[in-house]
């Protein structure tokens, strides 16, 4: 990474729910783009710089095959931004960030997330905490009144009082913060 440029965030698209037998996981298939947000200092305006990254991935079907490659990209820093039209669909597939946190409760090995009035979810909605090991991703989840209920992992980690999660509902997703 050139001096002065720093990586701020990785922006993931709405993941697909992938069910293999009894195990549910989340991921992407075929061609996929991952976005990165960078900050560039003012003195680098209108300059060409190169970013190099090592990419590691795991492609799974019957077998999981690991892959690794080095990618290089040249970018021109500018004081104006323009979205490449060929990526506009993809930008529409990024989770919507909810400003107001949601309240969660742990009861009888279940996580119950109380949804705010503006969030109308279907029966297909699923919650995916970013911290792995909180809920059992493979277990059924259900809408109970205005709450989304998920089973805790049999060997769940210590659950923080505040954690980030994704709520996926059909092809939409919401980036949320949950307070217990």
């Amino acid at each position, binding site marked *: 990474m050139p001096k002065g440029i720093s990586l701020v965030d990785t922006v993931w698209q709405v993941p697909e729910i992938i069910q293999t037998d009894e*195990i549910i996981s989340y991921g992407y298939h075929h061609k996929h783009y991952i976005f990165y947000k960078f900050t560039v200092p003012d003195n680098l305006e209108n300059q060409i710089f190169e970013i190099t990254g090592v990419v590691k991935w795991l492609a799974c079907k019957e*077998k999981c095959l*690991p892959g*690794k490659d080095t990618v290089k990209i040249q970018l021109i820093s500018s004081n104006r931004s323009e979205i490449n039209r060929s990526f506009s669909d993809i930008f529409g597939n990024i989770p919507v960030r909810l400003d107001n946190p949601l309240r969660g409760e742990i009861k009888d090995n279940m996580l119950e997330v109380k949804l705010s009035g503006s969030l109308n979810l279907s029966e297909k909605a699923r919650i995916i905490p970013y911290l792995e090991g909180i809920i059992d991703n493979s277990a059924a989840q259900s809408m109970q009144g205005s709450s989304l209920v998920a089973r805790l992992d049999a*060997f769940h*980690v210590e659950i923080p009082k505040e954690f980030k999660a994704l709520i996926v509902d059909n092809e939409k997703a919401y980036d949320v913060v949950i307070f217990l």
Partner: protein
Amino acid sequence: MNSLFGVFALIALSFALTNVFAQNKAEIDKPAPDFELTDVNGVKHKLSDFRGKYVVLEWINFNCPFVKKHYDSKNMQKLQDKYTQQGVIWLAICSSAPGKEGHLPKDEIKKRSENYKTKFTAYLIDESGDVGRLYSAKTTPHMYIIDPQGTLIYAGAIDSIRSTDKADIEKAENYVSKALGEALAGKPVSTKVTQPYGCSVKY
């Protein structure tokens, strides 16, 4: 009468096939659910027969790159050797269903075990996946430690770096080694649960 007999026969058959009686699923700090499985040589092993010894359960699939990472590097064999020499029972369990990835013919299992110079006590075959489900085994590898009183004292990953890269092994904290080391020294296990990583178990 005929239908009643049919139901009874079905229940009896179900018990005979699974060898896993109605038990609660495995939980940390609780008695580890008992099971009986047959190994690759046709020998039956019952978990409760190992009471009085530490037992390690290692979910395995020789075709999984995460498992290969630990066998190609000999990391797993070194752990198996170190701890079985101290009296620990090390059971590798394969819960791949017939026809699924990782379900290998017995000759192939023996060949690969020999090539890898494995040091586990036994390679157990769990074709029905009942034991895997009883322990909520999600990945290969997925590791469990049971103490001499039969209590589950560790469940989770083999180590702290979730990759298929052998070079990461040295940099990683090995949770199994840490937990066994503490337990064998008479100390409480400081990290009882971690998140396993690897290929999904092919039930």
